[in-house]
């Protein structure tokens, strides 16, 4: 009897501790340190925790860019990853070896809430690894509408018109194009945002490129992006100090109208909205023009995803899945919208952008709604060479010809493909 009593007490103690364990699960969420990602993650956490007081989530920050890639890879490889983490979709995700490191979400009910075009960018085979977190983005040219009005310019539909606008701007004493080579990743846009045009000129380039059958240096449409960088340098489109200017100080020049254009992702808009709320409505967006005015469209970046590593198990895994389900819901989108200025469309079924979106975002939405958009190469091919940013800076500062840079980039791509173990390399 005594024994039984003890047993019951023990059992009760155990079940209480089990309940209390379930009651207080705390998760860690690894997020890159950009303002936009941090605000998005915080907005999601606040709304989610309000509904689920038994779960707490803390953000851990990491650097962005290649440094961040390295941290994520190392932590996954050493089983030291946080419970959930935020990371790019597309080719960067493929390099994480997701089939062996991440939890497959394909049987989760919330997958049905995700817009189908996003899924291939977070999948390998039949397995799905992430939910879209935040908005998609457009890659193209951000421009200062006030400057355009003052000089009577109109949005260019071909590269020639763009060059003509730049000549007019130079004459008026305004730097035509913002170059922020101090943050090297920003130098890639002329090449990457040109992918809509590449796809128009060479349909199916992505598959041929992935299969080692198409090269940048031998495909004139693909080479064009590098040539634009050379033209920018030779025709003095860049503002003074372009070689060392960094991303955020550069945005100030654009907001103040000291430069007219910035080849960039619409991701920059939320930073502009935060730092220069009075000027953000002066900023518009147009697709990077190509050779033909008829085939003028925008290159689209998919949102980053939130993923669960296989090291997250038990109650923490349940809580993590619950949080991912919240991210992939209209409620989650509303939570973000309440705190962060959207930079583009969400990829959650049934979500709508608020009525008061920024002008540049409605410019972008117009391309998407009219069907004039295509994903960037890194979302339709697993290969992206890591040296592209330095090569773009080298061309944009006149140290390399477009042909040299493209040939170099092809070599870089070959290395990446071999590292990924793709067939045909």
């Amino acid at each position, binding site marked *: 009897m005594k024994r039984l009593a003890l047993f019951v007490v023990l059992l009760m103690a155990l079940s209480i501790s089990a309940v209390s364990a379930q009651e207080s699960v705390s998760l860690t969420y690894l997020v890159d340190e950009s303002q936009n990602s941090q605000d998005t993650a915080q907005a999601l956490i606040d709304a989610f925790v309000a509904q689920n007081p038994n779960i707490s989530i803390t953000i851990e920050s990491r650097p962005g860019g*290649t*440094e961040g*890639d*390295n941290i994520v*890879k*190392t932590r996954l*490889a050493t089983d030291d990853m946080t419970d959930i983490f935020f990371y790019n979709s597309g080719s960067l995700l493929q*390099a994480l*070896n997701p089939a*062996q*490191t991440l939890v497959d979400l394909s049987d989760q009910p919330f997958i049905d809430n995700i817009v189908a075009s996003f899924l291939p960018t977070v999948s390998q085979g039949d397995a799905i690894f992430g939910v879209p977190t935040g908005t998609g983005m457009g890659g193209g040219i951000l421009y200062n509408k006030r400057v355009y009005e003052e000089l009577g310019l109109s949005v260019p539909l071909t590269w020639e018109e763009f060059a003509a606008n730049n000549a007019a701007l130079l004459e008026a004493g305004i730097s035509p194009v913002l170059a922020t*080579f101090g943050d*090297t990743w920003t130098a890639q846009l002329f090449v990457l945002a040109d992918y809509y045009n590449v796809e128009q000129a060479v349909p199916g380039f992505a598959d041929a490129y992935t299969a080692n059958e198409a090269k940048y240096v031998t495909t004139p449409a693909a080479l064009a992006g590098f040539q634009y960088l050379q033209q920018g340098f030779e025709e003095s489109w860049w503002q*003074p*100090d*372009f*070689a*060392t200017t960094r991303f955020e100080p550069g945005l100030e020049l654009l907001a103040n109208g000291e430069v007219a254009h910035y080849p960039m992702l619409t991701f920059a808009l939320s930073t502009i909205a935060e730092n220069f709320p009075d000027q953000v409505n002066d900023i518009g967006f147009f697709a990077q023009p190509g050779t033909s005015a008829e085939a003028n469209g925008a290159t689209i970046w998919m949102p980053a995803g939130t993923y669960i590593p296989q090291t997250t198990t038990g109650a923490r895994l349940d809580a993590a899945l619950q949080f991912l389900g919240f991210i992939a819901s209209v409620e989650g989108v509303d939570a973000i919208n309440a705190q962060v200025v959207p930079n583009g469309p969400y990829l959650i079924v049934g979500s709508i952008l608020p009525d008061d979106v920024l002008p540049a975002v409605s410019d972008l939405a117009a391309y998407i709604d009219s069907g004039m958009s295509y994903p960037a190469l890194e979302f339709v091919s697993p290969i992206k060479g*890591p*040296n592209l940013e*330095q*090569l773009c*800076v*080298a*061309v944009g*500062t*006149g*140290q*390399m010809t477009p042909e040299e840079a493209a040939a*170099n980039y092809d*070599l870089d791509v070959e*290395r*990446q493909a*071999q*590292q990924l*173990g793709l067939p045909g390399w």
Partner: protein
Amino acid sequence: MNHDLRPKSVLRTYPHWFYLPAAIVFGVFFLVPTLAAFYFSMTRWTLFDATYIGFDNYVRFFQDPQLTAGLRNTAIYAVMTSGLKVIISLPLAILLTSRLHLKSLLRGIIFFPVLVSTVAVGITFSVLMQPSQGLINTVLRALSLGAPDWLGNPSLALISVALVDVWKGLGIATVLFISGILSIPNDYFEAARLEGGAWVKFRYVILPLSRNAAFTVILLSFIGGLRTFDLIWTMTRGGPGFASDVLTSVIFKQYQAGFYGLSTAGNVILFILVTIIVYPLMRFFNRRELEEL
């Protein structure tokens, strides 16, 4: 006779197990990682798994067009920093060993940059060297001396970083020279005073007798120059483009890109290169030292 043998027999009396702790530490922390590096440099390594590919990584590393530029830049950087440190620190050491008031204070001041973190120095100087608003160019413009784009101009970026390196490393070089000069017996200075003036003292006493200090300075700063990374990375990240890439920043970028096998091969190459350059240099200097005795 007995006396001479004693040290040897003392050495012999240590039993082998006595060396074991040191051997374990050496093996686990130095020998095994070194051998592992040699192995992984011959694999395509994703951190998740490694495939053996022989010498492909080495072939690829030498095909890398950035590597040639990186090697050239490393050589320029090492020669320039070690040369300038010797040329500038010797006169400074002579000044700071003279009968000067505030001598210790000045010695402290010149040593101060050595104590500051290299990353902090790098970030500070990239702000000071900002072309249009940086302090350096503001001063130069006020003196109407022109305003170069220190870190943005591809042909100047590497030299700018090297100059900051010289500023930061000058303290150690000067201290080495000071100790070299102070260890010269006073009789030589007496003799020099009788023979002639300051020039004789410099040319025939200080210069030849502080040669060992000079060799140490050259050797240390040359090795430092070959291995330099932190200053370059904080100031230019090897840019603009590849203009200030050195061997270590090329290797680091390959790590960042996830080419772990390739970058390990790069590190093995760096190891061999430093050995090839430094070993004969050390032999040469050591022999000179022996001859002097």
